């Protein structure tokens, strides 16, 4: 069995982990995985899909870099009778163009993070700063929306500054530094919401260097649950993270197996759990578990 996998790229540790897991899952099941890295470009993914079709693979996995623009190529795959499974991000094409989608709900993730903050504060006044992902990327848009939905109606929580940190540690640190300067050395800030853990890790260092205690003076909540954030949580420097599991391929392969065996159509959306981790969840242990997963 040959399956083509079009991955977005390797822009973050999380994605590297997803790639690693997909490859190891394929190996376990004896699948010949054709891997194509699109280097963050949709056009490359479309090319990859077309080449998979030309090559005549049995199925295609794709982690689409953006939601729009897949109709034509998915149609082509359909005509060639190759089932397509979407991983971790959605497309806005009609759902009969793909077999199923495995992923988490990005809005929901933001929502979980926001909800945690609301609960944690319990009505205390709080100024929040936000580190957004790459401007225009769907996780950045959705995680922002989800978070805002959660804090909506809680007048004690105010989002005072929001800038993009491009999902990277360096930018996370740089932007946090400027937030601290702009908000009275950080005294004005009570919580940080970062669209991914990497930015949070960078920001935590900035907070420390400004002479404040992350996790206490400024609460830190972020998304992804990569190993490094658990280390920070273990040290009391981060408060909460929402897990986005990198194992999207497992459920995808299961669905494909069933489909090939007897044509069972899986559900159109297989949602993975968006689990919330806090300092109470023995972060050190989770860190040990996660650190060798290829993050």
């Amino acid at each position, binding site marked *: 069995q040959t399956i083509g996998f079009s991955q977005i790229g390797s822009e973050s*540790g999380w994605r590297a982990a997803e790639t690693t897991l997909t490859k190891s899952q394929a190996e376990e099941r004896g699948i010949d995985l054709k891997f194509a890295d699109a280097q963050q470009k949709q056009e490359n993914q479309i090319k990859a899909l077309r080449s998979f079709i030309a090559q005549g693979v049995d199925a295609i996995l794709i982690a689409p870099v953006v939601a729009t623009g897949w109709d034509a190529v998915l149609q082509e795959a359909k005509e060639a009778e190759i089932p397509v499974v979407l991983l971790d991000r959605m497309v806005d094409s009609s759902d009969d163009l793909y077999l199923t989608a495995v992923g988490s709900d990005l809005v929901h993730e933001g929502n979980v993070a926001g909800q945690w903050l609301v609960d944690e504060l319990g009505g205390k006044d709080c100024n929040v700063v936000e580190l957004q992902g790459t401007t225009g990327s769907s996780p950045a848009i959705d995680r922002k929306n989800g978070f805002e939905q959660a804090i909506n109606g809680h007048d004690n929580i105010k989002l005072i500054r929001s800038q993009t940190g491009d999902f990277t540690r*360096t930018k996370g640190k740089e932007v946090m530094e400027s937030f601290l*300067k702009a908000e009275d050395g950080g005294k004005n800030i009570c919580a940080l919401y970062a669209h991914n853990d*990497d930015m949070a890790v960078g920001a935590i*260092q900035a907070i420390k*260097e*400004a*002479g404040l205690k992350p996790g206490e003076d400024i609460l830190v909540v972020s998304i992804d649950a990569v190993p490094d954030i658990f280390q920070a949580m273990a040290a009391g420097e981060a408060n909460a993270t929402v897990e986005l599991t990198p194992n999207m391929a497992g459920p995808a392969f299961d669905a494909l197996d069933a489909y090939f065996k007897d044509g069972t159509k899986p559900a159109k959306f297989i949602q993975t759990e968006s689990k919330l981790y806090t300092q109470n969840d023995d972060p050190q242990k989770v860190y040990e578990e996660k650190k060798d997963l290829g*993050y």
Partner: protein
Amino acid sequence: MSGTARFLRRIAPQLITLAFVLALISVMFPGFFNISIANGRLYGSPIDILNRGAPVALLAIGMTLVIATRGIDLSVGAVMAICGAVSAWGITQGYDLGSTLLMAVVAGLVCGLWNGILVSFLGIQPIVATLILMVAGRGIAQLITEGAILTFNDPNLIFFGSGSLFTLPMPVVIWIVTGLLITWIVRRTALGMLIESVGINLRASTLAGINSRVLLIAVYVTSGFCAALAGIIAAADIRGADANNAGLWLELDAILAVVIGGTSLLGGRFSLIASLIGAMIIQAVNTGILLSGFPPEFNLVIKAAIILIILVVQSPALRTGMAFFRKPRQTDVAKKETVTQ
């Protein structure tokens, strides 16, 4: 005109621009110039500019020399990533600080050597020659880190990112020292003039007996060295090597810094100090945007507008006494007269 006066006149446009940008920020953000001492180190937005501008400043040093020879080095961002990855790998493998730094610097030198050989021996055009390493280099860096962020906790290495010396953040010390050192080397010896000569007219320089091949290699190696320092700083700053994002698109900022510093992309006369001021101007713009609190989708438009204004104000046509609107052709030809092909 004395040497100092000539020098001041050379960097005046850059200084004025920098002052203007800083003034603009402090209007929008009144507390901008507040500097205090926290944890034994200077703390404040101007310090942030110096500190955050370190990678671009370092890259700009090497880039200035490369551009002076009429070349360009697109690979510096990727080389940063490689060297950052090497240093993180070295320290997590348990090598001591000295060997780790040595390995990272050697990696940078090797990258520079590769570029230099492609340009000078194989005669490949610089932009393409370095494009190869720009593409492949990030792959090499990821190969070292295996795609993940390679985190480390060695306090000695971290010191290069967030430590401080004489209350100045370490990155600031590094770029200032490197900048002065290379300026000193280049201007105290005949290197500066030889580099300019090669950049203006390679053929004539070779015919005058200059060893232009070695010189070309040397500037790319220097650029690799500077990129290595920048890479180490970037990794030490976030206590991890982020092969995917370290130095991403920084080559463009570095080139921009050199151009704002008044060095022509056609090679020739250069000024390292002016390039460094150029780097600070860019970082001031970036920091200013962050402090301003605009929504991020406007960042690029604002940046583009400011760059355009800076460049227009500094453009040679305007500098030759606003003669442009009256008699465009005169300034035109009279100036280009000196350009050989």
